[in-house]
């Protein structure tokens, strides 16, 4: 009993992943103390709405908390304001910026990711924004209220979500993307092209193969100069050019990292008693057969639950199917699984209706499904992808085919 009583799990990071570890530890009956370190001044909140609903003119004014105010007290979880600056993995101690030192028996890195900085000249001018935290979103909300012309750098999820939100507020929006298609890292070429056309039809000036060279400032405001030499005057610039995992502290502590904190299938790092979850963790992905680092709510919460079970002594492999979503104006994109450039795309439904899915086949099996305004397809896909289900493209395109019906035939309905 005494040994149990001394147990203390310290979780570095109070985002979706960190809070989930704490919640799941209690749900699993963890007997020790639980401390979550929060390096932001706001109480832990949900990030996904910040680039979507939160930026609309009719937004609900406050951030949505991850848990209610009495959650921490009622679950006996200590939410500690502060930033971890060093970890001594031999002595099992974490040092915080304020000088506090915490002893731990288990440590979880849930440090997330930081925005990749914009490196061109002029990147730090006032009016050039990034979006990650509630503070960033508040700044943007204020800037949007007076801006007319918006330039977005990077046509990834964040860039396009922001572009659609700004466009919906009646602003003039240009998006610069150095690659040949939007959301290229996450989407099949087929889906990517459909989104490019749709955003352009809706009135967003999406410019591909055109990156940012520099940002200048004159009396009228900012001017973004692209790699093709075009000049785009702007009142507000938002860049979303990817993220970098926050690995400084684990790296300095001798924990193995390589584009993220390296973890095994049970989410344990190279150092005993130390785990990592969420955006910062590079894990063996059974769905791709490679090491992966994913930035999504699903990955954060499912890994949070799994890490809690690992701390409780379970030795099982994390194998949850990755899924993602993005809301870009009226377009609701949902993805189940991870596609690869060589997958064979099969279109389900009619893309011109604005409601369809793309099935991606690998070696004849369903490897991923991208759905636009088709939640039923997405939910069915979450049951089907990863089950190594062989499908014939001719069957998929038959008018009577539906993923939902297929999911029902393959999975026994629990009684």
């Amino acid at each position, binding site marked *: 009993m005494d040994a149990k009583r001394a147990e203390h799990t310290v979780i570095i990071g109070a985002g979706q992943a960190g809070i989930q570890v704490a919640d799941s530890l209690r749900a699993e009956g963890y007997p020790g103390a639980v401390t979550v370190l929060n390096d932001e001044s706001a109480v832990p909140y*949900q*990030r*996904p*709405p910040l680039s*979507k*609903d939160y930026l609309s003119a009719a937004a*609900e004014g406050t951030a*949505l*908390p991850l*848990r*209610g*105010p*009495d*959650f921490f007290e*009622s679950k006996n979880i200590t939410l500690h304001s502060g930033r971890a600056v060093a970890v001594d993995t031999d002595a099992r101690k974490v040092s915080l910026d304020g000088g506090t030192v915490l002893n731990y028996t288990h440590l979880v890195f849930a440090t997330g990711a930081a925005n990749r900085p914009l490196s061109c000249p002029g990147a730090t001018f006032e009016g050039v924004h990034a979006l990650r935290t509630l503070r960033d979103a508040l700044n943007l909300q204020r800037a949007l209220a007076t801006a007319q012309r918006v330039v977005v750098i990077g046509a990834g999820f964040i860039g396009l979500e922001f572009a659609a939100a700004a466009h919906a507020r009646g602003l003039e929006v240009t998006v610069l993307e150095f690659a040949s298609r939007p959301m290229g890292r996450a989407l099949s070429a087929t889906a990517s092209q459909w989104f490019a056309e749709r955003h352009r039809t809706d009135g967003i000036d999406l410019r591909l193969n055109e990156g940012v060279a520099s940002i200048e400032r004159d009396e009228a405001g900012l001017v973004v100069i692209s790699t093709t030499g075009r000049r785009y005057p702007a009142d507000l610039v938002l860049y979303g050019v990817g993220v970098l995992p926050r690995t400084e502290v684990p790296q300095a502590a001798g924990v193995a990292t390589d584009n993220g904190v390296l973890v095994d299938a049970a989410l344990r790092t190279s150092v005993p008693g130390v785990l990592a979850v969420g955006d910062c963790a590079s894990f063996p992905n059974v769905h791709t057969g490679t090491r992966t680092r994913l930035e999504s*709510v699903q990955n954060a*919460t499912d890994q949070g639950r799994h890490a809690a079970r690992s701390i409780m002594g379970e030795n099982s492999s994390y194998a949850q199917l990755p899924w993602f*979503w993005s*809301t870009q104006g009226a377009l*609701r994109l*949902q993805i189940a699984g991870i596609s690869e450039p060589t997958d064979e795309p099969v279109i389900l439904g009619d893309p011109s209706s604005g409601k369809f899915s793309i099935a991606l086949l690998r070696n004849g099996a369903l490897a991923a499904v991208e759905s636009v*305004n*088709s*939640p*039923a397809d997405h*939910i069915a896909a979450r049951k089907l992808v990863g089950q190594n289900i062989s499908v014939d493209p001719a069957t998929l395109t038959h008018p009577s085919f539906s993923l*939902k019906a297929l999911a029902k035939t393959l999975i026994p309905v629990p009684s």
Partner: protein
Amino acid sequence: MPTITFAQSSGATTEITVAEGTSLMRAAVTNSVDGIVGECGGQGMCATCHVYVRPEFTDQLPELSDDEDEMLDCTTAERTDSSRLGCQIKMSPALMNIVVDVPADQV
């Protein structure tokens, strides 16, 4: 201001008064109502804010969109005629004293 009553399967109830326009999911999450998760932050993407709306209020609810309809097909607890997603119900004068039942499971 509108009041929402969340009734748990245990019989316990929580009454919350909120500003008009607040969604039922947000009201539940910000007030630590058990059994409402709202994992996607109110985007209608996760179906973890499933509630059963008591029949006397169903006529006043906003119309069920196709998207919500499809998401309700994949709730963890059984879908019934009174199933809705809490994130899609914004409080209005018509729903002044709404009562909803919280399902036993969301995830």
